[in-house]
């Protein structure tokens, strides 16, 4: 089966002027996404995890054309999405929709729910009559679990979970093939999170959608994803099926990340070993040489500073010179470094 989306060496660079710089000073490049490769199969969910500032949201915005990016993102029909002109891109915007993080902020407060959900439809299908648009909007509201008689209400009259359903309805109305969810549940409380995620899973099954699901909550990602990609400082650290990644993480960063997930069972929670990461995320304006993770890695060696590790290994790809489970000695070293 051919891939729905095949992304090669995607890069997003922002030109940043530091505070106090003269207006004509040369801006500094900030590599928010520094060469990301991944593939997405039809009907698959790809989870994207990483710390704040690792480029998750920028990656999403680059794919949908909200920020300029270089590299290659080949759609299923062979076209490179990043090379399209805005006019050519229009045809593909229908296929790729996005769900945003803040449910209320992503809805225009001055428009009714009906107008909000209808907007992609009226943009892409100007041939449809008003009654037809209204019927489709109502059908979509039913599908995402909203009362369709509330079509004339305004966003501020809904709860956060309902607002996110409105956001999902807006994304689905043009029958896309890919939905990019940028932390769709981080702003919701836990019980509502479960509802929204189950809704997404159900809709995905019904409609055969592909999802790119961005989150920083690892347990949520595990629940929804077929495959998971771990990002660090704009680079892919590890990408594997959800089962493999959570069961046998190879990259030291992934292991540290997973060890920090809280377990809702006090006996396991106290017994488990947390691998602390020392220091802060390095500035993406001056990333470390070689492997970007080496400054915080308990296994870093001379080679890590000299050579950039390639993302190797087929279905379970790791970008590390020395992959494999951390030994007890390495964990102890990380702990003592953290204590000091």
């Amino acid at each position, binding site marked *: 089966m051919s891939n729905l989306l095949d992304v090669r060496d995607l890069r997003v660079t922002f030109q940043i002027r530091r505070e106090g710089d003269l207006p004509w000073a040369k801006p500094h490049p900030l590599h928010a996404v520094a060469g990301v490769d991944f593939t997405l199969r039809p009907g698959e969910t790809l989870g994207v995890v990483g710390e704040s500032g690792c480029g998750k949201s920028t990656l999403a*915005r680059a794919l*949908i*054309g*909200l920020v300029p990016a270089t590299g290659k993102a080949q759609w299923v029909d062979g076209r490179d999405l990043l090379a399209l002109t805005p006019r050519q*891109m*229009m045809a593909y*915007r*229908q296929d790729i*929709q*996005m769900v*945003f*993080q*803040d449910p209320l*902020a*992503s*809805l*225009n*407060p*001055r*428009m*009714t*729910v009906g107008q909000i959900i209808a*907007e*992609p439809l009226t*943009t*892409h299908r100007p041939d449809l009559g008003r009654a037809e648009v209204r019927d489709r909007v109502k059908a979509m509201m039913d599908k995402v679990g909203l*009362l369709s*008689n*509330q*079509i*004339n*209400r*305004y966003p*501020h*009259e809904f709860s956060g979970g309902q607002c996110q359903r409105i*956001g999902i309805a*807006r994304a689905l109305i*043009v029958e896309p093939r890919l939905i990019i969810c940028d932390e769709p549940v981080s702003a919701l409380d836990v019980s509502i999170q479960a509802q929204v995620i189950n809704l997404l899973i159900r809709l995905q099954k019904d409609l055969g959608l592909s999802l790119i699901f961005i989150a920083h909550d690892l347990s949520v990602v595990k629940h929804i994803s077929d495959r998971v990609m771990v990002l660090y400082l704009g680079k892919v650290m590890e990408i594997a099926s959800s089962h493999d990644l959570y069961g046998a993480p190879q990259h030291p960063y992934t292991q540290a990340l997973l060890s920090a997930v809280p377990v809702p069972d006090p006996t396991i929670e106290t017994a488990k070993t947390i691998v602390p990461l020392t220091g802060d995320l390095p500035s993406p304006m001056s990333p470390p040489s070689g492997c970007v993770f080496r400054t915080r890695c308990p296994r870093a060696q001379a080679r890590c500073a000299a050579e950039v590790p390639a993302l190797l290994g087929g279905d379970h790809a790791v970008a590390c010179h020395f992959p494999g489970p951390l030994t007890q000695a390495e964990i102890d070293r990380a702990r003592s470094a953290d204590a000091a």
Partner: protein
Amino acid sequence: MVIDQTKMQSLSDRLVQDEVKGRSPWADARRRFWKNRAAMLGLSILVLVALFAILGGQFAQWSNEELDFSVMGQVATMGAPSLENGHYFGTDNLGRDLYARVVQGTQISLMVGIVGAGIAVIVGTLYGATAGYVGGRTDQIMMRTVDILMSIPYMFVLILLLVMFGRSMSMLFLGIGLISWLDMSRIVRGQTLSLKNREFIEAARATGVSSFRIIIRHIVPNLLGVVAVYATLLVPLMILTESFISFLGLGVQEPLTSWGALISEGAGTMNYGTLWQLLFPLFFFVITLFGFFFVGDGLRDALDPKER
């Protein structure tokens, strides 16, 4: 019975109910505005002044051009306000009926104010929203143009314009229109910049909505609160500007008149015991300005309850 029948009934009613009417942010603001007594007072004053401008002419015994020869030359003694000879507000220095003149002046002044503010709203909003939304170099060029226009002393330009091209209503509108939108465009641009990065704008961009539609459908409606408040404060400002120009003798030309021209005439003769010539136009001028300021304040409170 385990299940509360009435509750289930109300739930099922709700489910089959026809489309619920939502309460828009505008409707909320309207309710708050109706409750604001100062604003309602201001609004009723404005309505009365507007009615006066529209219908006041019907009740005049004299036209605004007629000279009353019976009072001419002895205005100070014979031209005082009286119901008997039909000069409700007295007469002006030439023996013209001041009531009819005030009606005419009210029409002209309100028109200047509303047209000036209207130009500011339309041009300023679109200009500012475009500059803010497009950003980058376009924004720089557009806003630096505004800066340059602003740095020119506008009163000087206005006077020059009126002197060079002759004093006419259209020239006055042009002059006032030229300057009135500058502040508005700055305010709107600032607001647009803060709106531009909101997620709902991103959502629209991601869907492929065109820039023009984003400005019209998403940005402008969210700006209208600020614009409405500023416009109501701009109307009195325009009236003041026109009055000042007229006071200098450069504004509207006889036989037309405006509040500023009437006040100027009245002020010129106030030493001769004809104080009514100053007080009647001044009264309308002052209450209208108060009315607009109260309404503007009320609108601000109603549209932005957090800022109170």
